[in-house]
């Protein structure tokens, strides 16, 4: 087992027992990256080669020198007996939607390709202060707009380590792939409609969207400010808990970072699920989408393997003392996507106003007659298709004459989606759930360039994850085996506001119940390749 394949908490233990140094851990991670990642994503990257098609391409910017300095600092502290921090020596990657001082912070867009951030996002700063070692900035869908990483302006975009002909998911594709491929035990991603949980499920890793307001958004380049959540991607629940411990909590730079004390996630982890009430909902075992005429709905059951993974997890948890509550109705789940389309586009269109070629980032090199033309050319040449699509939709649905019909209506439907969860989790209600267990995604990782053209179908892929973003509640996706095609399957636990400690505890119980199963020993195809070489 290579050092880079170990989990964060194992590496932390080895470091404290001085059996390994932070620099050795870093070298192992860099070696794995060199072996499996291939060339980093760049703009104007030329044609895709066969070699490219076999690599992960998680990275846009590798920060090896910064990482080495941090690793050496950790080793120095360990040598002098100082406390090196909870995440000392642990390599981590950063979704390139976070500003990190001194690094290119590109949002995977041409319009910010040359932007070097003069400040660091709070969650990243907290990880570095806790001794973590930043390996680099990883790829994503441009401005996080997408579920497959393919819309990144930095090509070749990330590929799924388990099957490089398939997508890693998105928009935190680089984060999930870098963790799954053993390049780094931890990554920080963002989740606006499922952008952590879906790639985590596609790549067979743990991905958590904390409660909105649990982790500061300062330094997170905004997409939909009322939905965006920074969160951890890791190989197991303990590592995710360790990382959340470091990044969670109030922040003077973010008014929406809630004043809620951060519990000790690690202490609660092993307490089991005795007496816990876990719900299953039929609304999460199918996709509901509109037929041609508005008001009529079609339903499509999920692939059997998805439902079986969830039901098996329920059985395991029942065996460990949890109570499983069937048929919990979540009637407004079906409205998550259209509501998301409207709310996210209104906020996105506004949040992208600032990219105008004036202050930073891309400014057209074409001659322009006046300022208006500078705006138009810079934005036309700097943005990819997805940002343009979302800006235009945002303009349309928030224009004064349409706002009532679209935007105000969407905000009301969002409250109805929230009410589903309030009723399910109400301690005095009919169901009194501690958590809802659901599949994470309707399909496993789909082939690259397969559905990218038809964005509506791809958007329905988020139907099981976006309700948690609307409600603001926390959700975690766990690897739960593989389907017949050898692709990872994820299951999801959703819980009430600020119940991360309970979700981690339930997830850990599931992890313990399945730790000896064969699928847990599988390695991504390309990692085996690497072992053959070294």
């Amino acid at each position: 087992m290579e050092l880079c394949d170990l989990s964060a908490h194992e590496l932390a233990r080895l470091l404290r027992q001085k059996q390994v140094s932070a620099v050795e851990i870093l070298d192992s991670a860099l070696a794995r990256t060199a072996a499996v990642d291939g060339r980093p994503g760049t703009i104007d990257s030329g044609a895709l080669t066969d070699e490219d098609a076999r690599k992960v391409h998680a990275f846009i910017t590798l920060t090896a020198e910064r990482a080495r300095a941090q690793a050496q600092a950790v080793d120095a502290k360990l040598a002098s007996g100082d406390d090196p921090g909870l995440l000392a020596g642990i390599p981590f990657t950063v979704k390139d939607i976070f500003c990190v001082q001194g690094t290119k912070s590109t949002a995977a867009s041409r319009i910010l390709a040359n932007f070097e951030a003069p400040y660091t996002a709070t969650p990243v700063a907290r990880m570095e202060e806790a001794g973590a070692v930043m390996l680099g900035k990883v790829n994503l869908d441009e401005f996080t707009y997408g579920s497959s990483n393919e819309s990144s302006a930095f090509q070749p975009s990330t590929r799924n380590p388990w099957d490089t002909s398939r997508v890693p998911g998105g928009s935190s594709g680089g984060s999930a792939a870098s963790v799954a491929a053993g390049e780094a035990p931890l990554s920080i991603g963002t989740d606006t409609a499922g952008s952590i949980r879906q790639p985590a499920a596609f790549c067979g890793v743990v991905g958590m969207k904390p409660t909105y307001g649990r982790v500061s958004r300062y330094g997170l380049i905004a997409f939909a400010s009322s939905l965006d959540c920074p969160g951890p991607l890791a190989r197991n629940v303990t590592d995710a808990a360790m990382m959340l411990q470091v990044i969670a909590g109030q922040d003077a730079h973010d008014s929406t970072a809630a004043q809620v004390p951060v519990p000790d996630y690690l202490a609660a982890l092993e307490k089991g699920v005795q007496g816990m009430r876990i719900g299953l909902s039929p609304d999460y075992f199918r996709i509901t989408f509109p037929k041609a005429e508005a008001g009529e709905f079609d339903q499509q059951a999920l692939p059997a393997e998805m439902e079986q993974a969830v039901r098996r997890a329920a059985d395991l948890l029942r065996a460990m003392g949890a109570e499983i509550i069937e048929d919990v109705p979540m009637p407004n789940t079906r409205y998550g996507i259209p509501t998301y389309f409207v709310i996210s586009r209104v906020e996105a269109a506004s949040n992208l106003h600032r990219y105008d070629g004036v202050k930073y980032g891309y400014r057209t090199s074409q001659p322009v007659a006046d300022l208006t033309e500078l705006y138009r050319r810079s934005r036309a040449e700097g943005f990819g298709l997805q940002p343009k699509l979302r800006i235009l939709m945002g303009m349309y649905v928030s224009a004064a004459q349409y706002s009532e019909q679209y935007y105000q209506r969407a905000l009301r439907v969002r409250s109805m989606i929230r009410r589903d969860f309030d009723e399910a989790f109400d301690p005095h209600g009919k169901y009194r759930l501690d958590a809802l267990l659901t599949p994470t995604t309707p399909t496993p990782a789909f082939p690259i360039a397969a559905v990218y053209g038809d964005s509506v179908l791809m958007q329905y892929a988020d139907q099981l994850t976006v309700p948690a973003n609307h409600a603001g509640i926390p959700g975690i996706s766990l690897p739960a085996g593989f389907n017949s095609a050898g692709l990872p399957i994820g299951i999801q636990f959703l819980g009430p506001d600020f119940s991360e400690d309970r979700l981690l505890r339930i997830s850990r119980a599931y992890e313990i119940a399945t730790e000896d199963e064969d699928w847990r020993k599988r390695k991504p195809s390309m990692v085996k390749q690497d072992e053959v070489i070294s």
Partner: protein
Amino acid sequence: MTEYETIIGLETHIQLNTETKIFCTCKADSWFDPPNTNICPVCTGLPGVLPVLNERVVEKAALLAAAMHAALAPISFFDRKNYFYPDLPKGYQISQYDQPIGRGGYIDLPIPAGTAPAYIRHVGITKLHMEEDAGKTRNAGNRRLIDFNRCGVPLVEMVTEPDLRSADEAAQYLIRLRQLLRWLGVSEADMEKGQLRCDANVSIRPKGASYLNPKTEIKNVNSIDAVREAILKEVGRQQREMDAGRRIEAWTLEWDEDAGVLRKMRSKETEADYRYFREPDLLPVRLTEEWKQAILKDLPELPLDRRARFITQYGLPEYDADILTNERTLSDYFEQTVQAYSGDPKRASNWLMNDVLRMINESGKSAAALRLTPVHLAEILKLVDSGIINTNTGKALLAKVEASGKTPGQIVQEEGLAKVGDDAVIRAVCQEVLAENPKEVESYRDGKITLIGWFVGAVMKKMRGKADASLARSILEELLNAR
């Protein structure tokens, strides 16, 4: 020629004098700073930044809203106003749209007598909310230079109902508003420094009509006189247009200070395109009862109320009350003087308006900063009233106390300024003067009795002004007429 009525509404942007900007911890006042130095990632709208509300902005805005008799909203919200402009780094301005901190409000404006007698103009307030300022741009040739120093400076936007009926009333509104802002201590309101900016919405209609014609908006006029002049010019233009049968279009006009001319300019964007929506990066502003009471504790008696009270309580004429309540510490100074003096308030007012105010203006200090305290002034007044010193000595004492900081009594005692009332001493000096000036005695006795004034002056000079002039005069007449 039909006779027209002028309809004016004023939009003011008031720069609050907090220490820091509204959503970041940069300085609020950067008037003397070089360009783009008073900036941070937040106020320059870098990717990923978030606004954090400054509590003092809420407090000063709430104080102003209360002083304008507006209802204070227990919960108010920030919204985004989206438009592209080089002085707006985020591409949207964070403002308050449908649920602002202040609702309604008014000011009863005293209009001084002019051709008509003085009257009160009731001016309603339609909008009163918090927002962030934009940066500054100026053009140089075909380029525009952008300075973000002022981005994020806290503003209160206050908009009146179209209740003003003349350029003079508009000017009075600005005068009273500036006085109130300084009085409350929420803004320096220096129009030259852009701390109080005014846009005027002007329209006219035939006298007696009740409908409103389309209005033109006159933008960034930066002095009270300029507002009056710009409005007068625009009203004149609109009258000529109406008389010629042409319609008034809703133009946006910019006042060119130097040329004294209005220029048509393209407005930033039509209203419908601002695409207002709730600011997701900020929480609602919760003005709890407890916080509100703490704020309103600082709400002083308002200038116009105090002005009215000075007239009734102290029997002062309107003129005195107006001057004495122009600036808050001056009005406090007057009241403390009257309390310490307990004599005729008008007398205290005279000394204050004629002498002490000159000292204040010349020294540039505020009344509160004078070393000559109200107790000192009262003491001087009592000394003069009781005849211990005469008026001139009293007036001279003002400057002496201010310079030395000693009390009037101390100075009178040290410099022996007390009037000498004893006959013998004056008699002796009078005889000296007559003896030294035989020619003048001769001509007085030949009938030139006006010389008596000269003789009194001579005696005062000898006694260094300390003598009782009337007593000296009667002794001199006695000596001169005795033969």
